[in-house]
């Protein structure tokens, strides 16, 4: 039985989250120096706090996606110190539970796609721990945003499978409808604070049928045909080989393992890596299976539109539009989909 609750204003909800700070750390989308992203409530300026509503209910995702809550850009997993030849590992303090307010349907879907990799055997415990300890509160988009193509990837901008759904009620009201046990538990705690009222859930539009959804099968086959196409060399000619598209893509999950040490102590950590860098595959002996930018660019698009389909059965893209917006030279998933053509949609 999920009890929908109503908050008079978003600020009232934020104040409630502040009061729960000893149990949950709450993050919300806002903007800093003109760049949108998630920031903890306890480190926000007044202006940033006021910008939450507009960013959370905008029809477009933030520049930084929620991927970094589960797969952070850098994460220490071994801390050690060395006495002579003996190496001793130190305890790492775990992470407390956290709330993400205002995740978009496309970002939520991208986390589900990464789940297929990190939660498969052998389970990545660092990722799993964060997934279990995070409550995701979704805010849907009214309709497809200007740079977005979520519908093409079977994602409806008005439906999101999250722990809680946050919608705008009448006027400034905020309606919260739990969809999972975690969501239910948070609603209970919010009710206990006394500043919320039980309410009737808003009708969740069923989301229109998959109007022009791409068929993973068709796209995969079409990509196989395009393997030796001159498209890759053409795109690679203007590609800069930087890491923007991979670091900001919500479904990219490649990582590097590095060591940092100073004299007798140090850490081993995992950090984001990009298949667009040549060091990604460059080997100690000097052999590099993907030596040119064209190889790497082809590999990146193949992973999203072909390899991931073969391994996991779905396209590894959620149509969030970040690659189109952030690539300095305008290369994006649509540069490839344009080449693939129209006849690959679900009939």
């Amino acid at each position, binding site marked *: 039985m999920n009890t929908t609750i109503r908050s008079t204003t978003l600020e009232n909800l934020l104040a409630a989250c502040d009061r729960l700070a000893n149990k949950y750390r709450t993050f919300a989308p806002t903007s800093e120096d003109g760049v949108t992203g998630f920031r903890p409530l306890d480190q926000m300026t007044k202006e940033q706090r006021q910008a939450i509503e507009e960013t959370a209910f905008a029809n477009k995702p933030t520049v930084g996606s929620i991927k970094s809550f589960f797969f952070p850009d850098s994460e220490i997993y*071994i801390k050690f110190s060395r006495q002579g030849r003996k190496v001793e590992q130190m305890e790492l303090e775990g992470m407390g539970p956290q709330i993400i307010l205002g995740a978009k349907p496309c970002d939520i879907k991208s986390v589900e796609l990464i789940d297929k990799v990190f939660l498969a055997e052998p389970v990545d*415990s660092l990722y799993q721990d964060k997934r279990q300890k995070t409550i995701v509160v979704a805010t849907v988009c009214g309709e497809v945003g200007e740079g977005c193509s979520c519908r093409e990837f079977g994602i409806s901008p008005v439906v999101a499978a999250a722990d809680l759904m946050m919608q705008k009620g009448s006027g400034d009201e905020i309606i919260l409808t739990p969809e999972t046990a975690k969501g239910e538990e948070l609603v209970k705690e919010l009710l206990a604070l006394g500043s919320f009222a039980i309410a009737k859930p808003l009708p969740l539009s069923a989301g229109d049928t998959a109007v022009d959804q791409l068929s993973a099968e068709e796209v995969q086959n079409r990509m196989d045909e395009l393997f030796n196409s001159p498209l890759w060399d053409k795109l690679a000619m203007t590609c800069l080989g930087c890491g923007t598209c991979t670091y900001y893509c919500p479904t990219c*999950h490649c990582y*590097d*393992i*590095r*060591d940092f040490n100073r004299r007798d102590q140090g850490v081993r950590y995992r950090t984001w890596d990009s298949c667009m860098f040549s060091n990604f*595959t460059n080997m*100690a002996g000097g052999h590099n299976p993907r030596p040119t930018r064209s190889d790497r660019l082809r590999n990146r698009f193949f992973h999203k539109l072909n390899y991931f389909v073969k391994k996991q059965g779905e396209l590894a893209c959620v149509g969030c539009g970040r690659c189109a917006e952030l690539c300095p030279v305008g290369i994006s998933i649509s540069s490839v989909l344009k080449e693939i053509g129209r006849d690959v949609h679900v009939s």
Partner: protein
Amino acid sequence: MCLNPLLPVGGIVTSIFSESSDVKTFQIKPETMFDHLPGQCAMLSLLGIGEALFSITSPPGRDYLEFSIKRVGKLTEALHQLEIGDEVGIRGPYGNGFPVEDLKGKNLLFIGGGIGLAPLRSLVQYAVDNRSLYPGKFQLVYGARSVEDLLFERDIRGNWPKEKDFEVNLSVDVPHKDWDGFVGYVPQYLEQLTLNPENTIGVTCGPPIMIKYVLKTLEKLGFPPEQIVTTLEYKMKCGVGKCGRCNLDEHYICKDGPVFYLSDLQKIKNDFCK
């Protein structure tokens, strides 16, 4: 929270043998021993320096693991300075290992190049230890850059030639005053030997360029792709098919490989050795 698959366990170095000027074979006893197939690998790590995947060169069934490591970079340099009794991080086993079931009852042709003999040695020794399961003819073709670079002298000149029906053919790339064996590359040497593809499986491992031409030569000599097995080596970091770098088409070499039949490789579009 389940155990983090990336955490190494401790292992003590119990013996070190110098195979050549830049290759040493380390015998390591992990805290918790794990059994493995020939051809599988394990991640060796020195905290603060790095981690890398090395093939296990000892056959299954021993109470230790052996790794032959060539000095090529930062980690291997540091590993070469280890002494007996030192501790090293280890996790594994990783990779699919050689298809020991399919090889039963077949003649076996082992083709190794330089440090590439390390994973093959695990298979050869396993086959020798279980001769009844592998009663066929054994042929080893092993090449190295120079006489000094020939590794595993104890096996290639010691134990293996003494084994029943085990033909050892050695080659070097550059002539040497007291070397009367074949001089040239392994693929050329194959064409001079009498190789009978009938009921024989060829298993090869070596630098990518050698593998590329060995596969071509074996096919030319009448070996069908289903009877040719090779290993591939890419840069690997996680070893569990998640960090995304060691893919050949959609296959992760650390998890779906490193051992492939040529028949599988021929379905793969990407060229593993450009």
